[in-house]
Protein backbone atom coordinates (compact mmCIF):
# COMPACT_ATOMS: atom_id res chain seq x y z
CA UNK A 1 0.00 0.00 0.00
CA UNK A 2 1.23 3.45 -0.84
CA UNK A 3 2.48 5.59 2.02
CA UNK A 4 -0.19 7.90 3.40
CA UNK A 5 0.11 11.61 2.72
CA UNK A 6 -1.44 12.44 6.10
CA UNK A 7 -2.00 10.27 9.12
CA UNK A 8 -3.59 11.58 12.32
CA UNK A 9 -3.44 9.25 15.31
CA UNK A 10 -5.47 9.29 18.53
CA UNK A 11 -6.26 12.99 18.29
CA UNK A 12 -8.00 14.37 21.40
CA UNK A 13 -9.12 17.95 21.72
CA UNK A 14 -10.72 19.49 24.80
CA UNK A 15 -12.26 22.93 25.06
CA UNK A 16 -12.25 23.26 28.82
CA UNK A 17 -14.19 20.18 29.93
CA UNK A 18 -15.92 19.66 26.60
CA UNK A 19 -14.31 16.96 24.50
CA UNK A 20 -14.58 17.96 20.85
CA UNK A 21 -12.40 15.17 19.45
CA UNK A 22 -12.24 11.73 21.05
CA UNK A 23 -9.35 9.55 19.89
CA UNK A 24 -9.76 10.35 16.21
CA UNK A 25 -7.72 8.36 13.70
CA UNK A 26 -7.73 9.71 10.17
CA UNK A 27 -5.60 9.05 7.15
CA UNK A 28 -5.47 10.18 3.56
CA UNK A 29 -3.56 8.69 0.64
CA UNK A 30 -1.84 10.67 -2.09
CA UNK A 31 -4.25 11.86 -4.79
CA UNK A 32 -7.22 10.78 -2.76
CA UNK A 33 -10.39 12.83 -2.40
CA UNK A 34 -12.07 12.21 0.92
CA UNK A 35 -15.47 13.55 1.92
CA UNK A 36 -15.79 14.36 5.60
CA UNK A 37 -19.40 14.27 6.76
CA UNK A 38 -21.18 14.73 10.05
CA UNK A 39 -23.91 16.71 11.70
CA UNK A 40 -23.35 20.11 13.26
CA UNK A 41 -21.04 19.75 16.25
CA UNK A 42 -19.75 16.35 15.15
CA UNK A 43 -16.17 17.64 15.24
CA UNK A 44 -15.45 18.02 11.52
CA UNK A 45 -14.36 21.63 11.74
CA UNK A 46 -12.28 21.02 14.86
CA UNK A 47 -10.46 18.16 13.16
CA UNK A 48 -9.77 20.31 10.13
CA UNK A 49 -8.55 23.20 12.25
CA UNK A 50 -6.10 20.86 13.98
CA UNK A 51 -4.85 19.67 10.59
CA UNK A 52 -4.51 23.21 9.25
CA UNK A 53 -2.65 24.51 12.28
CA UNK A 54 -5.40 26.86 13.47
CA UNK A 55 -5.89 24.78 16.65
CA UNK A 56 -3.49 22.54 18.53
CA UNK A 57 -4.68 19.08 19.58
CA UNK A 58 -4.69 18.34 23.30
CA UNK A 59 -2.98 15.04 22.54
CA UNK A 60 -2.24 12.83 19.54
CA UNK A 61 0.19 12.79 16.64
CA UNK A 62 0.11 14.05 13.07
CA UNK A 63 2.31 12.53 10.37
CA UNK A 64 2.92 14.12 6.96
CA UNK A 65 4.52 11.82 4.36
CA UNK A 66 5.46 9.45 7.18
CA UNK A 67 7.24 12.15 9.21
CA UNK A 68 5.86 13.28 12.55
CA UNK A 69 5.11 17.01 12.33
CA UNK A 70 4.48 19.68 14.92
CA UNK A 71 2.05 22.30 13.63
CA UNK A 72 1.88 25.40 15.77
CA UNK A 73 0.36 27.83 13.29
CA UNK A 74 -1.34 28.06 9.94
CA UNK A 75 1.94 29.13 8.35
CA UNK A 76 3.52 25.85 9.50
CA UNK A 77 0.70 24.02 7.74
CA UNK A 78 1.07 26.10 4.57
CA UNK A 79 4.81 25.37 4.57
CA UNK A 80 3.98 21.63 4.73
CA UNK A 81 1.72 21.99 1.69
CA UNK A 82 -1.66 22.09 3.43
CA UNK A 83 -4.00 24.79 2.12
CA UNK A 84 -7.37 25.39 3.77
CA UNK A 85 -10.28 27.17 2.17
CA UNK A 86 -12.76 28.20 4.84
CA UNK A 87 -16.45 28.95 4.64
CA UNK A 88 -15.85 32.65 5.08
CA UNK A 89 -12.90 32.60 2.73
CA UNK A 90 -10.00 34.32 4.42
CA UNK A 91 -9.48 37.28 2.12
CA UNK A 92 -8.64 40.91 2.83
CA UNK A 93 -11.63 42.76 1.40
CA UNK A 94 -9.77 46.05 0.92
CA UNK A 95 -7.09 44.51 -1.29
CA UNK A 96 -7.36 43.55 -4.95
CA UNK A 97 -7.77 39.98 -6.15
CA UNK A 98 -4.15 39.86 -7.33
CA UNK A 99 -2.82 41.22 -4.02
CA UNK A 100 -4.87 38.68 -2.07
CA UNK A 101 -3.71 35.78 -4.20
CA UNK A 102 -0.08 36.57 -3.49
CA UNK A 103 -0.44 37.86 0.08
CA UNK A 104 2.54 36.66 2.11
CA UNK A 105 4.28 35.31 -1.03
CA UNK A 106 4.51 38.35 -3.26
CA UNK A 107 6.80 38.07 -6.27
CA UNK A 108 9.28 40.94 -6.17
CA UNK A 109 11.65 42.61 -8.59
CA UNK A 110 14.24 45.33 -8.51
CA UNK A 111 17.27 45.83 -6.25
CA UNK A 112 17.04 44.28 -2.75
CA UNK A 113 16.39 47.40 -0.65
CA UNK A 114 13.98 49.08 -3.04
CA UNK A 115 12.36 45.90 -4.26
CA UNK A 116 8.76 46.22 -5.28
CA UNK A 117 5.94 43.83 -6.02
CA UNK A 118 5.90 42.59 -9.58
CA UNK A 119 2.40 43.92 -10.20
CA UNK A 120 2.27 43.03 -13.88
CA UNK A 121 3.23 39.43 -13.20
CA UNK A 122 0.75 39.23 -10.31
CA UNK A 123 -2.14 40.54 -12.40
CA UNK A 124 -1.29 38.34 -15.37
CA UNK A 125 -1.06 35.16 -13.27
CA UNK A 126 -4.19 36.14 -11.35
CA UNK A 127 -6.05 36.74 -14.61
CA UNK A 128 -5.10 33.26 -15.91
CA UNK A 129 -6.14 31.65 -12.63
CA UNK A 130 -9.49 33.43 -12.61
CA UNK A 131 -10.15 32.07 -16.08
CA UNK A 132 -9.40 28.55 -14.84
CA UNK A 133 -11.92 28.88 -12.01
CA UNK A 134 -14.40 30.42 -14.38
CA UNK A 135 -14.73 34.08 -13.37
CA UNK A 136 -11.90 35.63 -15.39
CA UNK A 137 -13.96 36.96 -18.28
CA UNK A 138 -15.93 39.51 -16.33
CA UNK A 139 -13.62 40.55 -13.50
CA UNK A 140 -10.17 42.12 -13.82
CA UNK A 141 -7.57 41.01 -11.27
CA UNK A 142 -7.22 44.53 -9.92
CA UNK A 143 -10.78 44.52 -8.54
CA UNK A 144 -10.97 44.79 -4.74
CA UNK A 145 -12.48 41.76 -3.00
CA UNK A 146 -15.13 43.99 -1.38
CA UNK A 147 -16.95 44.29 -4.70
CA UNK A 148 -17.12 40.52 -5.35
CA UNK A 149 -20.02 38.18 -4.57
CA UNK A 150 -19.67 35.28 -2.15
CA UNK A 151 -19.17 32.78 -4.94
CA UNK A 152 -16.54 34.91 -6.63
CA UNK A 153 -14.67 35.20 -3.35
CA UNK A 154 -14.74 31.42 -2.95
CA UNK A 155 -13.38 31.08 -6.47
CA UNK A 156 -10.51 33.44 -5.63
CA UNK A 157 -9.62 31.33 -2.57
CA UNK A 158 -9.67 28.20 -4.72
CA UNK A 159 -7.54 29.88 -7.36
CA UNK A 160 -4.99 30.62 -4.66
CA UNK A 161 -4.81 26.97 -3.58
CA UNK A 162 -4.40 25.90 -7.20
CA UNK A 163 -1.62 28.32 -7.91
CA UNK A 164 0.52 27.49 -4.92
CA UNK A 165 0.24 23.81 -5.71
CA UNK A 166 -0.53 22.69 -2.21
CA UNK A 167 -0.37 18.92 -1.96
CA UNK A 168 -3.40 18.79 0.34
CA UNK A 169 -6.31 21.15 -0.18
CA UNK A 170 -8.95 21.26 2.52
CA UNK A 171 -12.30 22.67 1.43
CA UNK A 172 -14.53 23.56 4.37
CA UNK A 173 -18.10 23.99 3.06
CA UNK A 174 -16.86 25.39 -0.25
CA UNK A 175 -20.25 25.24 -1.92
CA UNK A 176 -22.19 27.17 0.73
CA UNK A 177 -23.81 30.34 -0.60
CA UNK A 178 -22.85 29.51 -4.17
CA UNK A 179 -25.03 29.65 -7.24
CA UNK A 180 -25.51 26.61 -9.47
CA UNK A 181 -22.80 27.51 -12.00
CA UNK A 182 -20.32 28.41 -9.27
CA UNK A 183 -21.00 25.15 -7.40
CA UNK A 184 -20.42 23.29 -10.62
CA UNK A 185 -17.08 25.08 -10.99
CA UNK A 186 -15.99 24.10 -7.49
CA UNK A 187 -16.91 20.44 -7.99
CA UNK A 188 -15.10 20.41 -11.32
CA UNK A 189 -12.07 21.85 -9.59
CA UNK A 190 -12.08 19.06 -7.01
CA UNK A 191 -12.25 16.43 -9.76
CA UNK A 192 -9.35 18.05 -11.59
CA UNK A 193 -7.34 18.35 -8.40
CA UNK A 194 -6.80 14.59 -8.21
CA UNK A 195 -5.61 14.43 -11.81
CA UNK A 196 -3.09 17.20 -11.18
CA UNK A 197 -1.66 15.36 -8.18
CA UNK A 198 -3.49 16.96 -5.24
CA UNK A 199 -5.30 15.36 -2.36
CA UNK A 200 -8.50 16.91 -1.04
CA UNK A 201 -10.58 16.80 2.08
CA UNK A 202 -14.05 17.96 1.17
CA UNK A 203 -16.47 18.98 3.90
CA UNK A 204 -20.05 19.77 2.99
CA UNK A 205 -23.56 19.58 4.32
CA UNK A 206 -24.86 18.75 0.90
CA UNK A 207 -24.28 14.99 0.65
CA UNK A 208 -25.13 14.99 -3.04
CA UNK A 209 -22.22 17.31 -3.80
CA UNK A 210 -19.91 15.03 -1.83
CA UNK A 211 -21.15 11.92 -3.61
CA UNK A 212 -20.36 13.43 -6.99
CA UNK A 213 -16.65 13.88 -6.44
CA UNK A 214 -15.09 11.86 -3.62
CA UNK A 215 -13.32 8.47 -3.52
CA UNK A 216 -14.14 7.72 0.07
CA UNK A 217 -16.43 9.08 2.77
CA UNK A 218 -15.54 9.49 6.44
CA UNK A 219 -18.35 10.13 8.90
CA UNK A 220 -17.95 11.75 12.32
CA UNK A 221 -20.41 11.82 15.18
CA UNK A 222 -19.94 13.39 18.60
CA UNK A 223 -16.19 13.77 18.23
CA UNK A 224 -15.52 10.25 16.99
CA UNK A 225 -15.00 8.77 13.56
CA UNK A 226 -17.87 6.29 13.21
CA UNK A 227 -17.17 5.18 9.65
CA UNK A 228 -14.09 5.77 7.58
CA UNK A 229 -14.39 3.61 4.52
CA UNK A 230 -17.69 4.29 2.83
CA UNK A 231 -17.48 3.89 -0.93
CA UNK A 232 -19.85 6.36 -2.62
CA UNK A 233 -20.12 4.05 -5.64
CA UNK A 234 -21.64 1.16 -3.68
CA UNK A 235 -23.52 3.01 -0.94
CA UNK A 236 -26.73 4.97 -1.21
CA UNK A 237 -27.20 8.50 0.02
CA UNK A 238 -29.88 7.31 2.42
CA UNK A 239 -27.51 4.81 4.05
CA UNK A 240 -24.92 7.50 4.64
CA UNK A 241 -27.54 9.80 6.11
CA UNK A 242 -28.40 7.07 8.57
CA UNK A 243 -24.77 6.75 9.62
CA UNK A 244 -24.54 10.50 10.12
CA UNK A 245 -27.61 10.70 12.30
CA UNK A 246 -26.75 7.45 14.10
CA UNK A 247 -29.87 5.54 13.14
CA UNK A 248 -27.86 2.40 12.51
CA UNK A 249 -24.62 1.42 14.20
CA UNK A 250 -21.68 0.58 12.04
CA UNK A 251 -21.51 0.56 8.28
CA UNK A 252 -23.17 -1.80 5.93
CA UNK A 253 -21.64 -1.87 2.51
Amino acid at each position, binding site marked *: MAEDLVRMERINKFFGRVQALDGVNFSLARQEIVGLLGDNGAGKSTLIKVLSG*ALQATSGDIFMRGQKVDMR*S*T*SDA*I*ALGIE*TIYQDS*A*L*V*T*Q*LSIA*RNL*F*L*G*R*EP*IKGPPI*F*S*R*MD*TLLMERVAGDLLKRVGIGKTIPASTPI*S*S*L*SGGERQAVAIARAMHFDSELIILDEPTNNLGVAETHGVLQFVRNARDSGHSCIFIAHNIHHVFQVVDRIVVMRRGRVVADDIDPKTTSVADVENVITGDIAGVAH
Partner: protein
Amino acid sequence: MADAAPSPNELDQARAQKGSFLRNAIAAPEFGPFVLFVLELAVFYAINPAFLSVLNISNTLTFTVELGLIALAMTLLMTAGEFDLSVGSLFGFAPVLMWTLYNGGIMSLSVAFVVSLVVAALIGLVNGLFVTRLKIPSFLVTLGMLLVVRGTALFVTDGFPQRTWSAGGQWLANILVGDFYVGPFRVYASIFWFAAAAILLGYVLTQSKYGNWIQATGGNPVAARARGVDVNRVKVILFVLTAVMSAFAGVISSIRTSAANPNSGSGYELEVIAMVVIGGTALTGGRGTILGTVLGIFILRVMRNGIVLIGVPGLAYNIFIGAIILGMMALHSWLERRHQAGT
Protein backbone atom coordinates in the same frame (compact mmCIF):
# COMPACT_ATOMS: atom_id res chain seq x y z
CA MET B 1 -27.36 71.69 -38.97
CA ALA B 2 -28.28 68.02 -38.74
CA ASP B 3 -25.03 67.08 -40.54
CA ALA B 4 -22.76 68.67 -38.01
CA ALA B 5 -24.48 67.26 -34.98
CA PRO B 6 -23.15 63.91 -33.74
CA SER B 7 -25.71 61.14 -33.59
CA PRO B 8 -27.43 60.65 -30.26
CA ASN B 9 -25.66 57.31 -29.97
CA GLU B 10 -22.21 58.86 -30.17
CA LEU B 11 -23.24 61.50 -27.69
CA ASP B 12 -24.36 58.86 -25.25
CA GLN B 13 -21.09 57.00 -25.61
CA ALA B 14 -19.03 60.09 -25.12
CA ARG B 15 -21.07 61.00 -22.10
CA ALA B 16 -20.71 57.51 -20.67
CA GLN B 17 -16.94 57.59 -21.11
CA LYS B 18 -16.63 60.99 -19.59
CA GLY B 19 -18.90 59.85 -16.80
CA SER B 20 -16.82 56.80 -15.95
CA PHE B 21 -13.60 58.82 -15.93
CA LEU B 22 -15.17 61.36 -13.61
CA ARG B 23 -16.65 58.60 -11.49
CA ASN B 24 -13.23 56.97 -11.10
CA ALA B 25 -11.63 60.26 -10.13
CA ILE B 26 -14.37 61.01 -7.63
CA ALA B 27 -14.20 57.52 -6.17
CA ALA B 28 -10.47 57.93 -5.37
CA PRO B 29 -10.12 58.65 -1.65
CA GLU B 30 -7.80 61.58 -2.41
CA PHE B 31 -10.39 63.39 -4.52
CA GLY B 32 -12.33 65.01 -1.67
CA PRO B 33 -9.24 66.33 0.12
CA PHE B 34 -7.85 67.61 -3.18
CA VAL B 35 -10.98 69.61 -3.96
CA LEU B 36 -11.07 71.00 -0.44
CA PHE B 37 -7.42 72.05 -0.65
CA VAL B 38 -7.90 73.85 -3.96
CA LEU B 39 -11.04 75.51 -2.61
CA GLU B 40 -9.18 76.65 0.47
CA LEU B 41 -6.39 78.21 -1.59
CA ALA B 42 -8.88 79.97 -3.86
CA VAL B 43 -10.97 81.41 -1.03
CA PHE B 44 -8.03 82.66 1.02
CA TYR B 45 -6.33 84.13 -2.04
CA ALA B 46 -9.52 85.88 -3.14
CA ILE B 47 -9.96 87.49 0.26
CA ASN B 48 -6.32 88.35 0.88
CA PRO B 49 -3.80 88.08 -2.01
CA ALA B 50 -0.94 88.26 0.52
CA PHE B 51 -1.89 84.68 1.32
CA LEU B 52 0.08 83.48 -1.72
CA SER B 53 3.02 85.80 -1.09
CA VAL B 54 6.49 84.27 -1.07
CA LEU B 55 7.01 85.11 2.59
CA ASN B 56 3.76 83.52 3.69
CA ILE B 57 4.29 80.38 1.66
CA SER B 58 7.77 79.73 3.00
CA ASN B 59 6.64 80.47 6.57
CA THR B 60 3.72 78.07 6.27
CA LEU B 61 5.85 75.32 4.77
CA THR B 62 8.39 75.47 7.56
CA PHE B 63 6.29 74.18 10.41
CA THR B 64 3.96 72.16 8.18
CA VAL B 65 6.66 69.71 7.22
CA GLU B 66 7.69 69.16 10.84
CA LEU B 67 4.20 68.05 11.81
CA GLY B 68 3.91 66.31 8.46
CA LEU B 69 6.79 63.93 9.21
CA ILE B 70 4.75 62.51 12.09
CA ALA B 71 1.59 62.29 9.98
CA LEU B 72 3.38 60.28 7.28
CA ALA B 73 4.47 57.60 9.75
CA MET B 74 1.06 57.68 11.44
CA THR B 75 -0.54 56.94 8.06
CA LEU B 76 1.21 53.58 7.86
CA LEU B 77 0.44 52.79 11.51
CA MET B 78 -3.25 53.61 11.05
CA THR B 79 -3.40 51.58 7.84
CA ALA B 80 -2.24 48.63 9.96
CA GLY B 81 -5.19 49.32 12.28
CA GLU B 82 -3.46 51.03 15.23
CA PHE B 83 -2.73 54.62 16.23
CA ASP B 84 -0.35 56.39 18.56
CA LEU B 85 -1.29 59.17 21.00
CA SER B 86 2.24 59.50 22.40
CA VAL B 87 3.68 61.27 19.32
CA GLY B 88 3.19 64.78 20.70
CA SER B 89 4.95 63.98 23.95
CA LEU B 90 7.86 62.40 22.06
CA PHE B 91 8.04 65.52 19.90
CA GLY B 92 8.71 67.45 23.13
CA PHE B 93 10.77 64.82 24.95
CA ALA B 94 13.34 63.87 22.27
CA PRO B 95 14.87 67.36 21.88
CA VAL B 96 14.87 67.88 25.65
CA LEU B 97 16.85 64.66 26.03
CA MET B 98 19.23 65.58 23.23
CA TRP B 99 19.99 69.08 24.51
CA THR B 100 20.27 67.92 28.13
CA LEU B 101 22.89 65.35 27.15
CA TYR B 102 24.74 67.87 24.97
CA ASN B 103 24.60 70.81 27.37
CA GLY B 104 25.77 68.60 30.23
CA GLY B 105 28.92 67.93 28.22
CA ILE B 106 28.19 64.22 28.27
CA MET B 107 28.42 63.72 24.52
CA SER B 108 28.65 65.54 21.23
CA LEU B 109 25.48 66.82 19.58
CA SER B 110 25.43 64.15 16.88
CA VAL B 111 25.81 61.33 19.41
CA ALA B 112 23.09 62.89 21.58
CA PHE B 113 20.89 63.06 18.47
CA VAL B 114 21.37 59.35 17.81
CA VAL B 115 20.77 58.51 21.48
CA SER B 116 17.48 60.42 21.53
CA LEU B 117 16.29 58.60 18.40
CA VAL B 118 17.25 55.25 19.92
CA VAL B 119 15.36 56.08 23.12
CA ALA B 120 12.35 57.04 20.98
CA ALA B 121 12.64 53.70 19.16
CA LEU B 122 12.60 51.87 22.48
CA ILE B 123 9.48 53.79 23.53
CA GLY B 124 7.84 52.80 20.25
CA LEU B 125 8.91 49.20 20.88
CA VAL B 126 7.25 49.23 24.30
CA ASN B 127 4.05 50.64 22.75
CA GLY B 128 4.10 47.92 20.13
CA LEU B 129 4.77 45.08 22.56
CA PHE B 130 1.99 46.22 24.91
CA VAL B 131 -0.46 46.34 22.01
CA THR B 132 0.53 43.06 20.33
CA ARG B 133 1.58 40.82 23.24
CA LEU B 134 -0.78 42.00 25.98
CA LYS B 135 -3.61 42.72 23.52
CA ILE B 136 -4.37 46.10 25.05
CA PRO B 137 -6.00 48.61 22.67
CA SER B 138 -3.52 51.13 21.29
CA PHE B 139 -5.70 53.98 22.59
CA LEU B 140 -4.99 52.97 26.22
CA VAL B 141 -1.36 51.95 25.74
CA THR B 142 -0.32 55.13 23.97
CA LEU B 143 -2.41 57.33 26.27
CA GLY B 144 -0.42 55.88 29.17
CA MET B 145 2.82 56.36 27.27
CA LEU B 146 1.88 59.97 26.49
CA LEU B 147 1.68 60.71 30.22
CA VAL B 148 4.87 58.80 31.06
CA VAL B 149 6.93 60.53 28.37
CA ARG B 150 5.52 64.01 28.96
CA GLY B 151 5.96 63.56 32.70
CA THR B 152 9.56 62.49 32.22
CA ALA B 153 10.32 65.53 30.08
CA LEU B 154 8.83 67.85 32.71
CA PHE B 155 10.53 66.11 35.61
CA VAL B 156 13.99 66.05 34.01
CA THR B 157 13.87 69.75 33.16
CA ASP B 158 11.88 70.98 36.19
CA GLY B 159 9.54 72.32 33.53
CA PHE B 160 12.05 74.82 32.14
CA PRO B 161 13.12 75.03 28.50
CA GLN B 162 16.62 73.79 27.71
CA ARG B 163 19.37 75.99 26.36
CA THR B 164 19.73 74.98 22.74
CA TRP B 165 22.63 76.91 21.39
CA SER B 166 25.98 76.63 23.06
CA ALA B 167 27.90 76.07 19.84
CA GLY B 168 27.10 77.67 16.50
CA GLY B 169 27.59 76.06 13.12
CA GLN B 170 26.89 72.48 14.07
CA TRP B 171 26.99 70.38 10.90
CA LEU B 172 24.07 68.29 12.19
CA ALA B 173 21.89 71.37 12.53
CA ASN B 174 22.71 72.37 8.94
CA ILE B 175 21.79 68.98 7.59
CA LEU B 176 18.50 68.86 9.47
CA VAL B 177 17.21 72.41 9.13
CA GLY B 178 19.89 74.51 7.45
CA ASP B 179 18.19 77.32 5.55
CA PHE B 180 19.08 78.92 2.26
CA TYR B 181 17.41 81.13 -0.31
CA VAL B 182 16.12 80.10 -3.70
CA GLY B 183 15.45 83.49 -5.21
CA PRO B 184 13.20 85.16 -2.64
CA PHE B 185 12.19 81.80 -1.11
CA ARG B 186 13.65 80.91 2.24
CA VAL B 187 13.94 77.13 2.20
CA TYR B 188 14.71 74.92 5.19
CA ALA B 189 16.42 71.57 4.64
CA SER B 190 13.60 69.94 6.57
CA ILE B 191 11.36 70.14 3.50
CA PHE B 192 13.69 67.73 1.72
CA TRP B 193 13.45 65.31 4.62
CA PHE B 194 9.68 65.57 4.40
CA ALA B 195 9.63 65.04 0.63
CA ALA B 196 12.01 62.08 0.91
CA ALA B 197 9.92 60.52 3.68
CA ALA B 198 6.68 61.02 1.72
CA ILE B 199 8.10 59.43 -1.44
CA LEU B 200 9.75 56.56 0.44
CA LEU B 201 6.74 55.72 2.62
CA GLY B 202 4.34 56.15 -0.29
CA TYR B 203 6.47 53.71 -2.28
CA VAL B 204 6.57 51.24 0.60
CA LEU B 205 2.80 51.40 1.11
CA THR B 206 1.72 51.04 -2.51
CA GLN B 207 4.54 49.17 -4.26
CA SER B 208 6.40 46.94 -1.82
CA LYS B 209 5.24 43.67 -0.34
CA TYR B 210 5.51 45.24 3.10
CA GLY B 211 2.81 47.69 2.03
CA ASN B 212 0.62 44.75 1.09
CA TRP B 213 1.25 43.26 4.54
CA ILE B 214 0.45 46.56 6.26
CA GLN B 215 -2.89 46.85 4.45
CA ALA B 216 -3.72 43.20 5.10
CA THR B 217 -2.83 43.59 8.78
CA GLY B 218 -5.31 46.43 9.15
CA GLY B 219 -7.92 44.98 6.81
CA ASN B 220 -8.24 41.39 8.03
CA PRO B 221 -5.58 40.34 10.56
CA VAL B 222 -6.92 36.78 10.76
CA ALA B 223 -6.60 36.30 7.01
CA ALA B 224 -3.17 37.95 6.98
CA ARG B 225 -1.93 35.64 9.73
CA ALA B 226 -3.35 32.62 7.89
CA ARG B 227 -1.22 33.58 4.88
CA GLY B 228 1.92 33.67 7.00
CA VAL B 229 2.13 37.45 7.50
CA ASP B 230 3.60 38.21 10.94
CA VAL B 231 0.91 40.70 11.92
CA ASN B 232 2.45 41.50 15.30
CA ARG B 233 5.85 42.25 13.83
CA VAL B 234 4.30 44.57 11.24
CA LYS B 235 2.58 46.53 14.01
CA VAL B 236 5.64 46.71 16.29
CA ILE B 237 7.84 47.97 13.44
CA LEU B 238 5.30 50.70 12.62
CA PHE B 239 5.04 51.78 16.28
CA VAL B 240 8.84 52.11 16.31
CA LEU B 241 8.80 54.03 13.02
CA THR B 242 6.15 56.45 14.29
CA ALA B 243 8.03 57.10 17.52
CA VAL B 244 11.33 57.70 15.72
CA MET B 245 9.70 60.07 13.23
CA SER B 246 8.09 62.03 16.07
CA ALA B 247 11.45 62.39 17.80
CA PHE B 248 13.09 63.38 14.52
CA ALA B 249 10.42 66.02 13.90
CA GLY B 250 10.82 67.32 17.47
CA VAL B 251 14.58 67.68 17.10
CA ILE B 252 14.20 69.50 13.77
CA SER B 253 11.67 71.87 15.29
CA SER B 254 13.82 72.57 18.35
CA ILE B 255 16.89 73.40 16.28
CA ARG B 256 14.91 75.72 13.99
CA THR B 257 13.23 77.62 16.82
CA SER B 258 16.25 77.42 19.14
CA ALA B 259 14.00 76.13 21.89
CA ALA B 260 13.60 72.77 23.59
CA ASN B 261 10.50 73.19 25.69
CA PRO B 262 9.35 70.10 27.61
CA ASN B 263 5.76 71.18 26.92
CA SER B 264 6.07 71.47 23.16
CA GLY B 265 4.01 69.12 21.04
CA SER B 266 0.97 69.10 23.34
CA GLY B 267 -2.12 68.25 21.36
CA TYR B 268 -0.16 67.37 18.22
CA GLU B 269 -1.34 63.76 18.44
CA LEU B 270 -4.92 64.74 17.66
CA GLU B 271 -3.95 67.20 14.95
CA VAL B 272 -1.81 64.53 13.28
CA ILE B 273 -4.57 61.92 13.44
CA ALA B 274 -6.97 64.51 12.00
CA MET B 275 -4.59 65.15 9.09
CA VAL B 276 -4.39 61.43 8.33
CA VAL B 277 -8.14 60.74 8.40
CA ILE B 278 -8.99 63.88 6.43
CA GLY B 279 -6.66 62.55 3.74
CA GLY B 280 -8.77 59.42 3.40
CA THR B 281 -6.97 56.83 5.53
CA ALA B 282 -9.46 54.70 7.48
CA LEU B 283 -9.30 54.99 11.28
CA THR B 284 -10.23 51.31 11.43
CA GLY B 285 -7.34 50.26 9.20
CA GLY B 286 -6.95 48.44 5.91
CA ARG B 287 -6.93 51.50 3.69
CA GLY B 288 -4.30 54.21 3.69
CA THR B 289 -2.97 56.84 1.34
CA ILE B 290 0.22 58.87 1.68
CA LEU B 291 -0.90 61.29 -1.04
CA GLY B 292 -4.12 61.89 0.91
CA THR B 293 -2.16 62.49 4.09
CA VAL B 294 0.05 65.05 2.36
CA LEU B 295 -3.14 66.84 1.27
CA GLY B 296 -4.57 66.51 4.79
CA ILE B 297 -1.43 68.03 6.28
CA PHE B 298 -1.64 71.03 3.99
CA ILE B 299 -5.40 71.44 4.42
CA LEU B 300 -5.09 71.86 8.18
CA ARG B 301 -1.93 73.97 8.21
CA VAL B 302 -3.13 76.25 5.40
CA MET B 303 -6.42 76.64 7.25
CA ARG B 304 -4.59 77.73 10.41
CA ASN B 305 -2.51 80.22 8.44
CA GLY B 306 -5.26 81.48 6.15
CA ILE B 307 -7.82 82.09 8.86
CA VAL B 308 -5.50 84.50 10.59
CA LEU B 309 -4.57 86.21 7.33
CA ILE B 310 -8.18 86.90 6.33
CA GLY B 311 -8.90 88.36 9.74
CA VAL B 312 -10.82 85.65 11.54
CA PRO B 313 -9.73 85.60 15.20
CA GLY B 314 -7.15 82.82 15.70
CA LEU B 315 -9.17 81.50 18.60
CA ALA B 316 -11.88 80.43 16.13
CA TYR B 317 -9.42 78.09 14.40
CA ASN B 318 -10.68 74.95 16.12
CA ILE B 319 -14.23 75.52 14.91
CA PHE B 320 -13.07 75.30 11.31
CA ILE B 321 -10.84 72.28 11.95
CA GLY B 322 -13.68 70.44 13.64
CA ALA B 323 -16.05 71.27 10.80
CA ILE B 324 -13.52 70.04 8.23
CA ILE B 325 -13.06 66.75 10.07
CA LEU B 326 -16.81 66.14 10.32
CA GLY B 327 -17.38 67.12 6.70
CA MET B 328 -14.59 64.94 5.33
CA MET B 329 -15.64 61.96 7.45
CA ALA B 330 -19.17 62.27 6.09
CA LEU B 331 -17.81 62.40 2.55
CA HIS B 332 -15.51 59.40 3.01
CA SER B 333 -18.22 57.26 4.58
CA TRP B 334 -20.66 58.21 1.83
CA LEU B 335 -18.13 57.26 -0.85
CA GLU B 336 -17.37 54.00 0.96
CA ARG B 337 -21.03 53.02 1.17
CA ARG B 338 -21.68 53.95 -2.44
CA HIS B 339 -18.64 51.95 -3.51
CA GLN B 340 -19.82 48.88 -1.58
CA ALA B 341 -23.32 49.15 -2.99
CA GLY B 342 -22.20 49.64 -6.57
CA THR B 343 -21.26 46.05 -7.34
